[in-house]
């Protein structure tokens, strides 16, 4: 009975508890697909467009569908992280979990693994399946040429986007886990209010907006660090628009990961030292 099986079952336990990890991307994909089917009826004008514009117009729904699924699962990840170490204290089930020979380290890492890796992986599978469905549904109406829609390349772009966002968002998830380990109640308030207060204090004292800039950069930065500057304007279809070297050279990536590690370490300590009841 190894650490690996402890980790495996701790992750499974998270998935049993947070079924929104599966339901939310599936529901969003369902709604988006209905929208796409309605949109298919109005694609007759596409043939008249010149080839370059048509390629963009064809790729757009695929890209948007992936984006909206990824965005929704990112939000799910935030709530899962915020709930992870708080719910078990609220319902006192922590007393049950702690009666099992699973270390606090394993538990916290499993809880971090869910938003960090499982949620993006689920989003990836759901988005890919939805895109395949879109392709199958649109072929009779809109015979697309291979050159106009390179689904293989889009899949690589999506996987890359998910991977860099997981790394970039790691400190956000770790911060929320720390808050959920610490907050006496209402972890959402405890996560948000200090940042708002800090931003307000900065605005009043210095008339600057550095805190807001940092927050905004942490949420949006993966796009500007990991993709070419032109990538933000339309659907990303070219592998040349990916800039992994630039992304991994960004000191803010590593700063964020170091912060994430520190937050997780603090969360482990809190879970270990806080007496139940």
């Amino acid at each position, binding site marked *: *009975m190894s650490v690996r*099986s*402890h980790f*495996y*079952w*701790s992750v*499974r*336990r998270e998935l*049993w*508890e947070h079924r929104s990890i599966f339901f939310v991307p599936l529901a969003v994909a369902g709604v988006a697909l209905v929208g796409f089917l309605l949109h298919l009826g109005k694609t007759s004008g596409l043939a008249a467009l010149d080839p370059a514009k048509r390629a963009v117009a064809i790729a757009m729904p695929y890209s948007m569908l992936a984006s909206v699924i990824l965005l929704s699962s990112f939000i799910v990840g935030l709530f899962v992280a915020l709930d992870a170490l708080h719910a*078990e204290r609220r*319902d*006192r*089930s922590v*007393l*049950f979990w*702690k*009666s*099992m*020979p*699973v*270390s606090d380290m394993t538990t916290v890492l499993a809880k971090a693994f869910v938003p960090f890796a499982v949620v993006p992986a689920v989003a990836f599978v759901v988005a890919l399946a939805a895109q395949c469905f879109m392709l199958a549904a649109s072929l009779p109406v809109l015979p697309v040429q291979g050159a106009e829609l390179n689904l293989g390349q889009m899949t690589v772009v999506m996987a890359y986007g998910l991977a860099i966002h997981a790394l970039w968002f790691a400190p956000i998830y770790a911060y929320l886990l720390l808050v959920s380990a610490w907050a006496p109640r209402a972890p959402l308030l405890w996560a948000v209010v200090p940042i708002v207060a800090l931003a307000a204090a900065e605005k009043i004292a210095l008339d600057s907006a550095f805190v807001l800039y940092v927050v905004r950069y942490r949420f949006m930065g993966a796009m500007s660090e990991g993709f070419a500057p032109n990538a933000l304007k339309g659907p990303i279809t070219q592998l040349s628009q990916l800039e992994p070297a630039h992304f991994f050279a960004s000191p803010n990536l590593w700063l964020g990961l170091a912060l994430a590690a520190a937050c997780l370490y603090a969360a482990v300590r809190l879970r270990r*030292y806080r*007496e*139940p*009841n």
Partner: protein
Amino acid sequence: MACIEAIGVRKAYGATVAVDAVDLRLEEGRILGLIGPNGAGKTTLLNAILGLTPCEGSLKVVGRDPWSERDQLMRDVCFIADVAVLPRWLKVSQALDYVAGVHPKFDRAKAEGFLARTTIPRKSKIGKLSKGMVTQLHLALVMAIDARLLVLDEPTLGLDILFRKQFYDALLNDYFDRSRSILVTTHQVEEIQDVLTDLAFINRGKIVLGCTMDEFESRYTEVVVAPDALAAARALGPIHERQVLGRSILLFDRADRARLAVLGEVRAPGIADLFVALMGGA
């Protein structure tokens, strides 16, 4: 080897001392009842024994330091910390899967066997079960773990008497043996008097009485004294006196039973009565 060996265990929260200079020893194959009023330090002491909180002094549980070796400790020590702490969203079958997955000493077939005797539906979520059923489930999980020490903190609080009786019957008949030990705290003392082999009273963080049940029975005597013998009985120095339905019941510590027999009906006291006598203050 002693299952629990505490010497001078102390735990303070700021200026408040919750557990103070506690010496406690639990041998293998014994069932110890830890009895104390609310706020006496019971839960703090149990938390120290279970490695949930650090403490001062020397504490060994199944030969390990519970705080620094907590993860290994939990392979040999089980606990039910309270009634209904199983998470409500977990299904019964998932609870079995999880414990089977993480606990090296869990015997799934055994747990299934215990559950088969109950009416707990396997596919239900725990939130849908009655409080009694949740306790049955927790007990089934815990009894299927081949642990050396089982710690129960108010395991039957709020359950009806049938469930309480079943709980201790199952514990004695299907779980307890000479190689295992049980530590239990409860307010329903009368119900576990026959279950215990050892007894400890805790008050204001200190152990005020620690003895085996055999010692308890030979040391303490209760006499229902007739009114005309009351003065003579009081002269023998009872540690407590109470009135029940107009009769005086006097509790004696290490008294000569032959002399007491002359004064009235001699009988063994209940733990609860001794508890009141020692803790009641007035």
